[in-house]
């Protein structure tokens, strides 16, 4: 029997692929790598590119998936690809964070930064009271 390994490709939003394979090629951080069963344990970053999976059943065609980055974990008989759904990079992430910060600062202009608990409490109480009235209305007539 040919040696096989289990492959899972998952993204934060969904399971992309799961099955057994006899060979995988992936765009790793330092170049394309090929993985056969019983590969040494490896953890690597994946660069945007194509992931090729050769299924255990040799009659099936190769599965080719595009990954926009992520991480690849290899254990002797299990390979896990944690795929990103978005193109990532230190500077892109940084830009996103800066953008988020800027927007927050804009929204915060003229605010003190101390929670007015009394006001917040009042606001919540009002909402709760409204809900209670609705509840009563619902019960009435039963």
């Amino acid at each position, binding site marked *: 029997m040919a040696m096989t390994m289990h492959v899972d490709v998952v993204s*934060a*939003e969904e399971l992309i692929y799961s099955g057994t394979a006899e060979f995988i090629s992936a765009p790793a951080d330092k170049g394309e790598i090929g993985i056969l069963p019983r590969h040494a344990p490896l953890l690597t*970053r994946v660069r945007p590119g194509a992931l090729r999976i050769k299924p255990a059943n040799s009659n099936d065609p190769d599965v080719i998936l595009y990954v926009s980055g992520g991480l690849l974990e290899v254990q002797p008989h299990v390979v896990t690809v944690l795929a*990103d759904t978005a193109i990532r990079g230190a500077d892109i992430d940084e830009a996103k964070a800066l*953008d988020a910060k800027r927007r927050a600062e804009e929204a915060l202009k003229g*605010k003190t*930064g101390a929670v007015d608990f009394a006001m917040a409490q009042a606001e919540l109480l009002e909402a709760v009271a409204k809900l209670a009235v609705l509840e009563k*209305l619902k019960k*009435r007539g039963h």
Partner: protein
Amino acid sequence: MAGGKEIRTKIKSVKNTQKITRAMEMVATSKMRRAQERMRGARPYGEKIRKVTAHLSAALVDYAHPFLQKRDTVKRVGFIVVTSDKGLCGGLNTNALRLTLNAMKELHQSGVEIAVTAIGNKGFGFMNRNGAKVISHVVGLGDTPHVEQLIGPIKVMVDAYVAGEVDEVRLVYTKFVNTMRQEPTVEQLLPLAGEAIGQPDHGYNWEYLYEPDAKTVIDDLMIRYLEALVYQAVAENMASENAARMVAMKAATDNADKVIGNLQLLYNKTRQAAITKELSEICAGAAAV
């Protein structure tokens, strides 16, 4: 007593409202199903990444990641508050915000400062109105939230944690128990509790090969793990939101039915009273002749 015409107009308007609430109920039902699927779809990633992290922390004991280190003094706590963008979903946001507020109040009393990352319009509005320090926010996620939209706001909070401006991060969202029950929850996100990562399911450890190097890989992994946790909370919150809206709109439709019934009764009574009055007037007139 109101005239017949006014009551008829009123009935019509309530009927129109009922049409809207019924439509919203149906929309919420179908959206809830999709949101639930999305919630389930997000689970494998979280599980896998947890497993990898567990392997890693077992294989690499000498590098203590800042996310895993508990700090002795807590001067400021960060809250990531997940709420819905839209209202009309019963007590969902109110309950989550009340829980947050209570937690904040407790911290405030012991002199701990607060920073907030608001995900969702309702929480953002609430925190802003009440003067909380919102360091980042994201609103308008739509029906299909994407991790991409969350990266920036989460990074602001995580950066604050790494820089030591925040010593603890908690995540608030509404857990989806079932269609009828949603529970607001506060969970500690940072520092990551040891049990959240767990132990590897094998008795032995591997020495990994790392590309490019161990530290980079672990850092990448940790931030993704956090994002996965937050994304999962957002997906779950969305399922809760739609379930809550469905229930609320169903109640509203039922209420409208009752209101229409009462108004119809009133209308019939008024009509009958008018007829009786007219008849008696005619009779009185005939008798007078």
